[in-house]
């Protein structure tokens, strides 16, 4: 809260989402994503928090029949990324994502991190070298892998693989990073590493993170949104949500009476 001026980086407005089978998974959801802050999405399984997260980089476009209604405005463009004229690939170039299970590609450590640059057509060897090193340092992985960059990424431990996926996402200088339960497949030590990493990253970008773990939300986030059955129940500063929520449902979930 040290910064006095809050900028909105992205903003969901009255977002509805329908899966191909007609299920309405998000109901009129609105949420601001503040610049250089971590916003956590919490709520019981099936509440739509992952579905919501995946709207921001248009991941639902990969499966035919899914449908968005409403807006997610991306700033400074002030453009609705869900609009028909928007190219989802351009959106993903600026909003990157880290998944629940580490999903490195069947390539070397180096090529995993370089992937986004290669996809963007970067040809200069030295530019790629620099970016890979910078991203691996940014993901606190450089010291562990600098002597074996040509090793297959699958040889890394689960926690290292997840940090590699973060490095991969960082290498292209995204403006927003989406984390979909990034530590749920990791052990406690790897989890702490990732959490520290995320806290360090927010000086460079804005973060939206889905988590099952309320303590994690309390530890790392600046803002927290509680979702239930596809609706946004409450959004506020994290300390407010965890000490003095204004909605009864939020309090019940936070205190463990439910969920």
């Amino acid at each position: 809260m040290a910064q006095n001026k809050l900028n909105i980086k992205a903003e969901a407005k009255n977002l509805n989402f329908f899966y191909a089978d007609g299920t309405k998974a998000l109901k009129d959801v609105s949420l601001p994503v503040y610049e250089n802050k971590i916003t956590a999405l919490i709520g019981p399984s099936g509440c739509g928090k992952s579905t919501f997260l995946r709207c921001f980089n248009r991941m639902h476009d990969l499966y035919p029949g899914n449908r968005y209604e409403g807006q997610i405005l991306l700033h400074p463009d002030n453009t609705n990324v869900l609009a028909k004229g928007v190219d989802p690939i351009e959106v993903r170039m600026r909003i990157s994502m880290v998944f629940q299970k580490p999903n490195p590609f069947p390539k070397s450590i180096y090529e995993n991190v370089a992937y986004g640059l290669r996809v963007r057509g970067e040809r200069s060897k030295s530019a790629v070298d620099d970016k890979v090193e910078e991203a691996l340092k940014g993901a606190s992985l450089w010291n562990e892998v600098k002597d074996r960059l040509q090793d297959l990424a699958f040889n890394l431990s689960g926690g290292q693989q997840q940090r590699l996926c973060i490095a991969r996402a960082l290498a292209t200088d995204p403006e927003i990073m989406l984390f979909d339960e990034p530590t749920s497949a990791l052990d406690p030590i790897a989890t702490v590493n990732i959490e520290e990493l995320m806290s360090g990253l927010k000086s460079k970008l804005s973060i939206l993170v889905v988590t099952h773990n309320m303590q994690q939300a309390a530890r790392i986030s600046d803002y927290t949104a509680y979702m239930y059955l596809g609706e946004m129940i409450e959004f506020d500063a994290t300390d407010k949500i965890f000490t003095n929520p204004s909605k009864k449902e939020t309090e019940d979930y936070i205190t463990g009476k439910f969920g």
Partner: protein
Amino acid sequence: MATTQLLKDLPVSKRLAKNIKRNFIERVIEIILMLSALTAVFITVGIVYILVTEASGFFSDVSVFEFLTSRQWSPLFEDAHYGILPLISGTLTTSFIALGIAVPIGTVAAIYLSEFASHKARETVKPVLELLVGVPTVVFGYFALLFVTPILQKMIPSLPTFNMLGAGIVMGIMIIPYIASVAEDAMRAVPMQMREGSYAMGATKFQTAIRVVTPAATSGIIAAYILGISRAVGETMVVAIAAGQQPTFTFNPLEGAATITAYIVQVAMGDLPHGSIGYQSIFAAGMVLFVLTFLFNIIGHLARKRFAERY
């Protein structure tokens, strides 16, 4: 130690005693299952046994050196020569042409079906492709001889009626569905989350297919190629009908030549006396075929192990 002995001496209660009938039935079932599994092994051993015994009769008359180095194969002539090289050159040339057609087209078809085709398109194209598998190979043979070769002869007037090019091309067409189908299964087995990782980085469908899915499915794709090679090397009817029956040591696809399989068919259809050198020669040729396929399978196995999936 003392306690175990003490426990051993305790009588076993009837309710906990071993059920002899149940154990017996289990054992019988296990043996039946094992015998079924061993059938394939017995048959393979039997085939190898016959190949080796009959071929050893052949090699008591013909030196292995001549067999492997002579460039003439004419076991049924007055002036008999027993060099397997012409048959090997025919087999390799036709197989090479076939794979040159089937590997690229099959791989591209697999990438399309797995990564690009809509559900509806896949459900239409795949059955049609697999229909090709059901066409009898003799039909493909005449397709090569009466349809493909005349077209080729328009382009290359000097092309003889029996030639390895036409036979190889048609054999390749025949193998496409095998490679496409097995390679597509391997690509579809790549977990969706790996594709999502690529798309999330801003990759296009094509970039994802080429840079992520194909390397992830390498081991399965190699298996598809090995299956294709085995089919090509062992294919009989197409080459027997369209490539000619004249054993010629040549790698020129514009000539006709006999393959190992074509020679075996040719001799087997004739009326050679059992035990004659001509009769035994088909087992020697068969053994070479067996060794060739076996070698390709081993190479394929090693390659698959090298690229085994680890996601």
